[in-house]
């Protein structure tokens, strides 16, 4: 078991207080940055560290920052995406509740790199404890000079405001999140322009996930060599995995990327709740599932992409022998249908239709051709919806049919024999 970084103090009841954080090396990374780095050097370091975003898409963080134009006179904004809502995912909540200063310090470093003076921390409204603890962390950081005017006499200034979400999964999509901060309905916008060029209030904006930002203090305190020594070379660093569903030991685990899905479920998840595993979802419900005979797949960005799925939010959901895959497919599809913002037709209508078919199959009223119809709908949604919500929905549903077609057929067959 390797050293814990992000979860080092997670069981300390005082971990959320700034005194505890400082004693553990907290704000040393920020001191180093402000003393030894100019903003461009921070960006270059993050680029060469190969830190990839932990929110779902896995985009290289330093590269994202480098897209912010240097010559644009408008204010720059940093927005932290803490609108965690991908089913199975709870890592950011635990970081914010238990050790929020990692995030605050990371936000100050990121803001320094891109030249931002006002940052917004967008936390979903249900996370009341996260909101309280992050606000307390912001207040403590202000009192000790890590936030506000002229931070540690560096000339760099930053204010962080919490913007509370109000119950909309789609606001985790970065352009929808920015619309929401602007006081509008959370509906995605066409890209380009990307937020780095024209984001919040049409100003250059960087949107980063909680865990991504929480990695930064450690990277700058302990250096690139240390950071690169954790996990795979092309995408290293500390990583959190949330295990839930049919596992004996659900919880948040910090593990090096590159471990096999099977080892994660058996060794850390403690095995299947009932009998054996039938399948598992590797990265939140948008990520296509793997049947148990494919559990050798390595849990990192590249390996999962090559295997036709994704690391996503690294939310691993175990499904054991008692799980009915058509029921799982119905529940996932109902979720996406409910959370579809309604802006584009493939997602709005396609998912409504798919959910209806899945409910009918589950109720024993499936018809011959229903599975083909579902596959047709997946093809009509994937790559044709406005944002990643529709793509994820179709991708996840498609995998349930690909690997477990026989379970759908078994529910439909009796009906067709009667008629």
């Amino acid at each position: 078991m390797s050293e814990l970084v992000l979860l080092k103090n997670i069981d300390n009841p005082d971990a959320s207080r700034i005194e505890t954080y400082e004693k553990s090396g907290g704000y040393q990374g920020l001191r180093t940055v402000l003393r030894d780095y100019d903003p461009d050097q921070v960006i270059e370091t993050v680029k060469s560290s190969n830190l990839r975003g932990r929110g779902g898409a896995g985009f290289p963080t330093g590269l994202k920052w480098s897209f912010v134009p240097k010559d644009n006179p408008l204010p720059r904004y940093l927005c932290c995406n803490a609108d965690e809502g991908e089913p199975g995912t709870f890592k950011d909540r635990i970081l914010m509740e238990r050790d929020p200063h990692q995030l605050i310090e990371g936000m100050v470093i990121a803001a320094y790199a891109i030249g931002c003076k006002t940052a917004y921390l967008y936390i979903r409204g249900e996370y009341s404890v996260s909101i309280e603890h992050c606000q307390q962390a912001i207040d403590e950081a202000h009192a000790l000079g890590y936030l506000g005017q002229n931070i540690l006499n560096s000339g760099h200034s930053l204010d962080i405001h919490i913007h509370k979400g109000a119950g909309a999964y789609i606001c985790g999509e970065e352009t929808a999140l920015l619309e929401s901060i602007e006081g509008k309905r959370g509906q995605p916008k066409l890209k380009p322009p990307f937020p780095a060029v024209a984001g919040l209030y049409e100003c250059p904006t960087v949107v980063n996930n909680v865990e991504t930002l929480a990695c930064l203090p450690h990277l700058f305190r302990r250096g690139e060599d240390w950071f690169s020594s954790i996990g795979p070379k092309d995408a290293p660093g500390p990583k959190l995995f949330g295990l839930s569903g049919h596992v004996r030991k659900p919880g948040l685990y910090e593990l090096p990327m590159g471990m096999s899905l099977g080892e994660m479920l058996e060794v850390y998840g403690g095995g299947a709740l009932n009998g054996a595993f039938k399948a598992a979802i590797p990265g939140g419900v948008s990520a296509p599932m793997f049947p148990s005979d494919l559990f050798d797949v390595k849990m990192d960005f590249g390996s999962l992409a090559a295997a036709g799925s994704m690391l996503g939010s690294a939310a691993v959901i175990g499904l054991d022998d008692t799980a009915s895959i058509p029921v799982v497919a119905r529940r996932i599809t109902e979720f996406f249908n409910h959370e579809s913002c309604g802006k584009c037709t493939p997602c709005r209508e396609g998912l409504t239709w798919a959910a209806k078919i899945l409910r009918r199959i589950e109720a024993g009223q499936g018809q011959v051709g229903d599975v083909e119809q579902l596959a047709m709908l997946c093809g009509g949604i994937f790559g044709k919806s406005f944002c990643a919500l529709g793509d994820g929905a179709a991708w996840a549903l498609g995998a349930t049919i690909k690997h477990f077609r026989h379970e759908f057929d078994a529910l439909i067959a009796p009906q067709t024999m009667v008629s």
Partner: protein
Amino acid sequence: MSDARSLTDIKRDLATGVRQMRARYPTSRSAIMPALELAQQKYGQVEGLTYQAVSELLDVPEIWVFEVASFYSLFDRSQTGRHHLRLCTNLSCMLRGSDALMQHLQNRLAIKSGETTSDGAFTLTDVECLGACEMAPVLMVDARYHGDLTTDKLDVLLASLAGQPTKEAT
């Protein structure tokens, strides 16, 4: 109940808080969500007069306020019970028995999801992932999470919420 409150009352109640929220953003429109949240905290719901009050306090069109209130599911546009029970029924909770808990809650409270008990004590809603799958199945009671639930634990919780002594307590 809302009939008794005038537009002037609501504006007076919200003025200071809305002004503080407004100062966090470069535009008034951004303060609509926080303003509605303040209103909901104070009155338990948002409705017609609230939209008008927020619109006038922020000097934005009332339709902008309604657009926001009607999009986000945490804004209650009708009166809810004294306690709002939001049961997660998404995948990780479903795999750990949330369907049975929903059935149990509906039986115990004699309402369906989306309804409020006749005594005004409880509103029950099934919701999407609450982001606490490590303690599935999860119920959000007002602003707080309760995890690792069973029907027995639910009964204890309901009794304590209703202000009645629980079996364990007597």
